[in-house]
C-alpha cells in the first residue's frame, strides 16, 4: 500500500481521492438509505402496533361496556331483581354485542394469553345466556325475586378476571411491542453509530493519507525545489541542479526536469548575452575612444584654430590702436577687415564647436532661476551698436521687470536670445523695427517674441530654417552668418525644456518666439558677465609698478603680450618659452604676477602652477591662465586648479590689460 502510494503521481492521487470520496459518498448514501428505510419500517410497524393496540383497547372498552357492570352483568342482575323485560332484552343485546366484540378482537390477532382470556369471556357469556334463559322461565313461572335469585346465580368473578386478564394482555402486548420497537431503535442506533464511526474513520484515514502524501510527495519536494531555486546563482544558473521528487515520472519530477532545462537554457542565454555584452562593451569602448578622439580633436582644433587666431586678432588690435604709430585711413580700413573677418571666423569656430557639443549631447546646462529682464538688458547692450549701425529701432514691451524669473541656464539663454535679436537686426530692412514682447502661456511658460520688419520667409522654406548651414538664400547676400545659429538656438531652448516657434509673412516680417518655463521664485541670480567686443576701443589704464612673467611657447603670442604690456606704464614683462625656465625666472625675479600658457612643451601649465604653489618664493604670486583651451570644462579645470583668472585665446587686449592691471593694483592696495 505504502509502496503504491510512493509511486503515485499527483494526477493519479487526485483521481484516487475522487474515487475514494465518491465511494465514501456512496457508502454514506447507502447507509443513509438503509437507516431511512429501517426507520420508515420501524415507523410503519410502530404505527400498525399502535393502531392494533388502540383498536384492541377500543374493543376492550366496548367489551367492558357490554359485559361489565354497565352491560350484561348489570342487565342480568337487574332482571333478577326487577323482573323487567327490558333488562332481559338488553341482557341478550349485550350478549350479542359481546359476541361481535370478542370476534372483532380476535380478528386483530391475539396472543395465547389473550385467546385464553377471550375464551374465558365466551364461557362466562354462555353461562349468562343459560342463566338468563332459565331466569326467564322462572320469572314467567311465577317465581319470586328471591327465589329466582337463589336458583339462578352466576359468579361474575370469572368475567371480571377475564376482562382484567385481557387488559393485562393488552398492556403486556403494548410493552412487548414497545420493547420490540425499542430493540429495533437500539439496533438502528447501533447501526447508525457503527456507520458514523466507520465513515468517520474512513474519512480520517483518507485525510491522514492525503496529508501524508501531500507532505512527503508535494510539500517536501516543493520545499527542496524552492530551496534549490533560492540557491540559483543568477550569473550561472546552469550550475544549480533542481532536485527531483524521487519518483520518476511524477509531476514534480517533471517540474524539476523542466526547471533544469530552463536553467540550462538560461545559462546558454546568459552566456550568449555576456558574449553580446562583451561585444557591445568592445563596441562601446571603440565608440568611446572614437568619441574621445572626436572630443580631443575638437579640443585640439579649438586650440589649434584659436592659437593662430590669437596672433591674427591680437596683432590686428595692436595695429588698430597704436597711439605711437597711428594707421592711415586705408591701413585702418584693412585692419578693420582683418578684425571683422577674424571675429567672424572665431564666431564660426565657436558655433561649430557648440554644434559638435550639442550633437554629442555634451552641452552643459546649469538650470537656475534667471531674471529674463537682466538677460534681455544684457543682450540689448551687446546689440546696441549693431542696431544703430543698421538703423534699427528696438522696442521692448512694457511690464517686464527684474522679478520675472525663468528656469534656464543664464549664459545659454542669453546666447539664444542674443542670436534671435542679432538675426532680427541682420535680416531686417533698412531702418526697420524690432518689437520684443512677452506673455505668459497657459502652461506656466514665458513666451518671448522677437518680431522684425524684414522681408519675411516663404512658408515652404520655414522647415529648412532649423537645418544646419541652411541660410535660405542669405548666403548670396552681404549678410554675414554661419547658418547654424538657429540650429544651436533651437537645441539650447529645447535642452532647457523650452521650445522655439517661428511665424513669418513675406513682405511684412518674421517673428521668432521662444518659450521657457517660468520659475515660482522671484529671486534671480545676478549673473551679468562683463563682455567685451572685438575692436572696442581699449580703455586707458592708470600707471602701475611691477613686473609680470609670461610663460608662452608661441613667439607671436609673446610679442603680442609684450605690446599689451607696453601700453601699461610702469609695467615690465619677462618671459619664458617653457615652464621649467618660467619657474626659474619666477624664483629669481619674484614678479608681481605670472601669466601661464597651459599647453606648454614639457611641463604643462597645471604642473607649473602646482610647482609655483609649492615653492615659498612663489606661492603668493597670483597666476593667470591664458590658453587656447576655451571649452567650459577647461575653464572650470583651471579655476579648480587655483588660477586667479582663466583667460582664453584669442586674447582680447582690453580684457587682458584690465586683468593684469586689476591684479597688480590689487596687490598694491
Amino acid at each position, binding site marked *: 500500500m505504502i509502496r503504491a502510494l510512493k509511486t503515485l503521481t499527483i494526477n493519479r492521487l487526485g483521481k484516487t481521492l475522487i474515487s475514494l470520496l465518491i465511494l465514501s459518498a456512496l457508502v454514506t448514501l447507502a447507509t443513509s438509505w438503509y437507516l431511512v428505510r429501517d426507520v420508515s419500517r420501524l415507523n410503519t410497524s410502530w404505527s400498525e402496533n399502535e393502531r392494533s393496540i388502540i383498536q384492541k383497547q377500543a*374493543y376492550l372498552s366496548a367489551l367492558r*361496556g357490554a359485559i361489565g357492570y354497565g352491560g350484561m352483568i348489570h342487565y342480568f342482575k337487574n332482571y333478577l331483581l326487577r323482573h323487567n*323485560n327490558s333488562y332481559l*332484552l338488553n341482557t341478550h343485546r349485550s350478549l350479542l354485542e359481546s359476541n*361481535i366484540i370478542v370476534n*372483532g378482537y380476535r380478528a386483530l390477532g391475539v396472543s395465547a394469553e389473550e385467546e385464553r382470556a377471550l375464551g374465558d369471556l365466551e364461557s362466562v357469556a354462555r353461562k349468562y*345466556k343459560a342463566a338468563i334463559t332459565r331466569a*326467564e322461565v322462572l320469572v314467567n313461572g311465577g317465581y319470586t325475586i328471591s327465589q329466582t335469585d337463589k336458583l339462578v346465580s352466576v359468579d361474575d368473578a370469572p368475567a371480571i378476571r377475564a376482562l382484567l386478564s385481557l387488559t393485562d394482555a393488552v398492556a403486556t402486548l403494548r410493552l412487548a411491542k414497545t420493547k420490540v420497537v425499542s430493540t429495533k431503535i437500539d439496533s438502528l442506533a447501533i447501526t447508525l453509530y457503527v456507520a458514523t464511526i466507520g465513515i468517520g474513520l474512513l474519512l480520517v484515514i483518507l485525510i491522514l493519507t492525503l496529508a501524508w502524501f501531500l507532505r512527503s510527495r508535494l510539500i517536501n519536494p516543493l520545499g527542496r525545489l524552492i530551496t534549490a531555486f533560492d540557491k540559483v546563482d543568477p550569473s550561472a544558473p546552469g550550475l544549480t541542479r533542481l532536485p527531483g521528487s524521487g519518483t520518476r515520472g511524477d509531476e514534480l519530477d517533471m517540474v524539476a526536469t523542466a526547471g533544469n532545462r530552463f536553467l540550462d537554457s538560461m545559462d546558454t542565454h546568459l552566456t550568449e548575452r555576456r558574449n553580446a555584452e562583451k561585444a557591445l562593451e568592445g563596441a562601446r569602448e571603440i565608440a568611446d575612444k572614437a568619441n574621445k578622439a572626436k572630443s580631443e580633436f575638437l579640443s585640439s582644433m579649438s586650440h589649434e584654430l584659436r592659437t593662430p587666431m590669437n596672433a591674427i586678432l591680437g596683432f590686428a588690435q595692436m595695429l588698430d590702436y597704436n597711439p605711437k604709430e597711428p594707421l592711415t585711413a586705408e591701413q585702418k580700413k584693412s585692419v578693420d577687415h582683418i578684425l571683422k573677418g577674424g571675429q567672424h571666423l572665431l564666431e564660426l569656430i565657436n558655433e561649430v564647436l557648440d554644434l559638435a557639443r550639442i550633437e554629442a549631447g555634451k552641452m552643459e546646462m546649469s538650470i537656475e532661476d534667471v531674471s529674463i529682464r537682466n538677460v534681455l538688458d544684457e543682450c540689448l547692450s551687446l546689440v546696441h551698436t549693431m542696431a544703430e549701425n543698421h538703423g534699427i529701432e528696438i522696442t521692448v514691451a512694457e511690464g517686464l521687470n527684474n522679478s520675472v524669473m525663468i528656469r534656464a541656464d543664464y549664459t545659454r539663454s542669453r546666447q539664444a536670445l542674443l542670436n534671435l535679436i542679432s538675426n532680427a537686426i541682420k535680416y531686417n530692412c533698412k531702418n526697420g523695427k524690432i518689437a520684443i514682447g512677452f506673455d505668459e502661456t497657459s502652461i506656466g511658460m514665458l513666451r518671448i517674441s522677437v518680431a522684425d520688419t524684414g522681408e519675411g520667409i516663404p512658408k515652404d522654406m520655414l522647415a529648412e530654417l532649423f537645418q544646419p548651414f541652411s541660410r535660405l538664400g542669405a548666403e548670396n547676400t552681404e549678410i554675414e552668418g554661419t547658418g547654424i545659429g538657429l540650429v544651436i538656438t533651437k537645441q539650447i531652448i529645447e535642452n532647457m525644456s523650452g521650445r522655439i516657434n517661428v511665424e513669418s509673412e513675406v513682405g511684412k516680417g518674421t517673428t521668432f518666439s521662444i518659450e521657457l518655463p517660468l520659475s515660482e521664485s522671484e529671486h534671480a541670480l545676478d549673473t551679468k558677465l562683463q563682455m567685451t567686443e572685438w575692436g572696442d576701443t581699449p580703455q586707458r589704464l592708470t600707471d602701475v609698478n611691477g613686473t609680470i612673467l609670461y610663460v608662452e611657447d608661441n613667439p607671436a603670442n609673446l610679442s603680442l603680450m609684450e605690446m599689451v604690456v607696453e601700453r601699461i606704464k610702469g609695467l615690465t614683462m619677462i618671459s619664458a618659452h617653457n615652464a621649467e625656465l618660467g619657474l626659474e625666472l619666477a624664483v629669481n625675479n619674484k614678479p608681481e604676477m605670472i601669466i601661464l600658457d597651459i599647453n606648454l612643451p614639457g611641463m604643462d601649465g597645471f604642473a607649473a602652477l602646482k610647482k609655483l604653489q609649492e615653492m615659498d618664493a612663489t606661492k603668493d604670486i597670483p597666476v593667470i591662465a591664458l590658453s587656447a583651451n576655451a571649452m567650459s570644462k577647461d575653464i572650470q579645470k583651471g579655476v579648480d586648479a587655483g588660477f586667479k583668472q582663466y583667460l582664453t585665446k584669442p586674447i582680447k587686449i582690453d580684457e587682458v590689460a584690465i586683468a593684469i592691471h586689476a591684479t597688480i593694483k590689487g596687490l598694491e592696495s
Partner: protein
Amino acid sequence: MGLTPSPVYGLWQNINRAVIVYAKMHSNDRDWLKKLNQMEPNKFSGKEPANVLEQVKRFKIKLIELNRHWSDSAVETLLDGNLPNLLSSDDNRITPSQVYLHSGQVLVNIAGHILQESATVIEISPLFEEQHITGKTPSDVYGMVELGIRRLEEIALLKTEEKKAQ
C-alpha cells in the same frame, strides 16, 4: 373482520323463528302458520356481505311497514355507541360482522316487539340461542334473509286481507 357468515346465518335462523312467533301473535290460522313455517330459503349464489346487508335493510323496512308502532327506540339497539365504527374496515367493505350487527339489531327489536305486544307470556331467550353452524356463505345468509322477507310479506298480506274482511 371477526365473524364468518355462519354465525350470521345462525342469527337469521333465530330471526326467522322470531318471525314465526311474531306471526302467531297476529293469526291463529294453523294452515297459514303451517305454510309459513314450512317455507324454505331459496338458493342464491355469488352474494357478498354487502348484498346481504342490503337485504337486511329491506327486511327492516318491511318490518316497519308491517307495524306502524315499530320503533327503533323501543329498546336500545346495537347500532348505538362506538361499535359500528369499530367494525368498519379501512376500505369501507361490508364485513359479516357488520351484517351480524344489523341482524342482531333486527332480532333484538323483533324480540322486544314480541315482549311488548304479546298478549301471552312468550319466552324470548330461546330466540337468542346460539346456533353452532359452520360452512355457510353470504349467499346462504342472503337466502335466509330473503326467507324472512317473504314471511313478513305473508304476514302483511294476511293483515291486509283481515282489514279488507273487516
